[in-house]
């Protein structure tokens, strides 16, 4: 019987790998560009009160930005100054803290500065999945509750002026 042990261990490992593969954010249905944002309601960070809902996004007739981030995500630190820049240019940015502890989110924002108009917490990551978030950071440009553009990964210095800003401006027209 003990000869079967290696086989059984392998079965357990491949089971884990299979689940791991399905956890792969690539498998999560990605929100289509020009589709309305999914229905959701998220609490504020570290509380029960409603922080952000799809209705609030749908009610905006100016361009807004939704940024998914986490304090444990190194690229989010890289991206942070550009969000501050966007805020300084007068854009309204909503932050969604992805699978993050409230305490850590607050420390992150306190230390680096808060670029967000409002911050909501998605502790289980469910709403992020509905949005089709691939991984953090990820940034959505939304107007009238419709997703117009999606940027995966950190907003990079190289593309900020040449790509991200023009797109936001063109959506804003």
């Amino acid at each position, binding site marked *: 019987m003990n*000869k*079967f042990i*290696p*086989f059984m261990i*392998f*079965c357990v*490992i*491949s089971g*884990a*790998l*299979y*689940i*791991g*593969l*399905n*956890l*792969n*954010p*690539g*498998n999560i249905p990605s929100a289509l560009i020009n589709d309305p944002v999914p229905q959701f309601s998220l609490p504020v960070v570290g509380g029960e009160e409603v922080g952000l809902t799809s209705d609030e996004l749908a009610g905006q007739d100016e361009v807004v930005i939704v940024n998914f981030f986490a304090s*444990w995500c190194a*690229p989010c630190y890289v991206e942070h100054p550009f969000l501050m820049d966007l805020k300084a240019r007068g854009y309204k940015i909503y932050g969604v803290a992805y*699978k993050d502890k409230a305490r850590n989110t607050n420390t992150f924002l306190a230390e680096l500065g808060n670029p967000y108009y409002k911050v909501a917490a998605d502790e*289980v*990551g469910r709403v992020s999945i509905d949005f089709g978030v*691939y*991984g953090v950071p990820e940034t959505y440009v939304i107007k009238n509750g419709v997703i117009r553009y999606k940027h*995966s*990964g*950190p907003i990079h210095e*190289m593309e900020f002026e040449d790509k991200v800003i023009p797109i936001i401006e063109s959506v804003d027209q």
Partner: protein
Amino acid sequence: MIVEVGHYALIVACLLSLIQGTFPLYGAVKKQGRLMSIAAPAAYGQLFFALLSFSALMYAFVVSDFSVVNVARNSHTLKPMLYKISATWGNHEGSILFWALILALYGAMVAYFGRKLPKTLHVRVLSIQALVGLGFYLFLLLTSNPFERIYPFPMEGNGLNPLLQDPGLAFHPPLLYLGYVGLSVTFSFAVGALIEGRVDAAWARWVRPWTLLAWCFLTAGITLGSWWAYYELGWGGWWFWDPVENASFMPWLVATALLHSAIVVEKRDTLKAWTILLAIIAFSFSLLGTFIVRSGVLTSVHAFATDPERGVFILLFLFLVIGGSLLLFALRADKLQPGGLFAPISRESMLVINNLLLSVAAAVVMFGTLYPLIRDALTGDKITVGPPFFNMAFGFLMIPLILFMGIGPSASWKRADLMGIVSRLKFVFAAALVAGIAFFYIAGGSEIMAAVWLGLGIWLLLSTLFEWADRVKLFKPASLKRMSRQTRASVGMTLGHLGLAVAVIGMASTSYWDSEHQSIMSYGDQASIGGYDITFKNTDGIIGPNYSAVKATFDISKDGVTLDPLRPEARVYLSPPMPTTEAAILSTIMGDLFVVIGEANSKDYDEWAVRLYYKPLQIWLWGGAAIMVLGGFISLSDRRFRMGLSKRVKK
């Protein structure tokens, strides 16, 4: 046109592997000579078509044919020719094609060198090899076609990640793949033997050179990767325990165990089931490594493009190959009768200890690598397992391993005289102990682990030399004659162990006693580190073939003697746009001086962030690994004589 020929050749190779993997296997069961004799020609044909296919892809890269998606995505006209060529295997599709090519190469080598093997075993091994290859061909054709075209095609390609544009990394994947895939031969032999139900000394004599060959390439490939990280990533680290590194390290650990257990099968006709299991596991780790790197299951999703379709395919393939062979093992292993018995203190049991420690070490690395994934799967928690875990758990296992490595070669087969070994090695042990304690005090009584590791390295170095001296009866009459009569295998063993000793000494020293100096420096500023005096002289702007850079000049002197200046660069590549650092390194046998220039601190460009490191005995690490590989090849040149003589078992 040539690209289409490549695609077509890939399909032909796939079909040939299907033929090679089925008819001869059936023929071996039915004892039909005609069906069996298909195997070898099919293996040669498969190599021909795989090579044709790979060459076609390489041609597309060399001429920058951007109508091929793969080329457009990974190449650029401005890239130097070396990196156009290395881009062929530097991307997902190309690297899998390269895998398949090497698999075919090994298959053809088995077909050629194995002509004198028992016929049924020979064709079974070839068939298994072909079935593994079939999986890779299907993977290419169904999910990752390297020859896909686009229209309209872009005028310029995306370029290759600049970090990868480096000679060290151009040759790192081929070596690593030669190692990974080399283990497929051992695997095919193991499965072939399970089907045959027979494992004997002749089988082991066959398996050893293949394991050794794969091991040499793996060692060289891992070292090259580590060396690349050391000088290219710019902070002088050489091992990070990241999943991709671990993916290459796990097969190395198991292959090292296999190398030793195959000796026991060959010399003493025992440990058969264990050796077969190791052969299966070693290749399983190779495949698992491919899965980890290629499916993106463990790496950051933004670093590698992930594709669940590919992941599912590889996982299914993995399940069939590994699961199937382990099941076969479970069903057939009882047929493998153990042979010679041995006493608890003997060469055999020393090798068993080696095997246990190496296997547990591989399991520890696997656990650490997969744990974040398993945790995420079960609870959704995001965690990382970092170097502290690996350093502690792995290091803990290496201490007894190195202690036993010093003793093992002195133990005789069947029954060894423990007291005799102890009395012979007691002075060596005492010397290592004294050296360790001395280093502990020289270093000011800090870092006890540094002293432990240095002591272990010295113990291994001295005991290996002592055993060799004992064997050739150094300083006694005719010792030179004895020296020249040593078999190459035993010379290889001595060199392999010596190499590890040298590497361990280097690792201990550079890990615990390195020093670092980070500062903002203006022109004319001075700093000193590791006995060197460094003066920041100036910076220049330079333009390379596909990058622009700041090149700094540092004047170096030691004990008042002026040495050649060091010139580190901070580059910005054009396509894709990305900054990289090119460290300047002054390597001596005593240690490396490592200078990195960072960003300008002021708008006037006269103050720069500068990082200086001194890494004592760093070069010993690479030198030790090189000695290990040399030992492996010397040992291999010995085995070559026996490759054709598999049936003549010496009594």
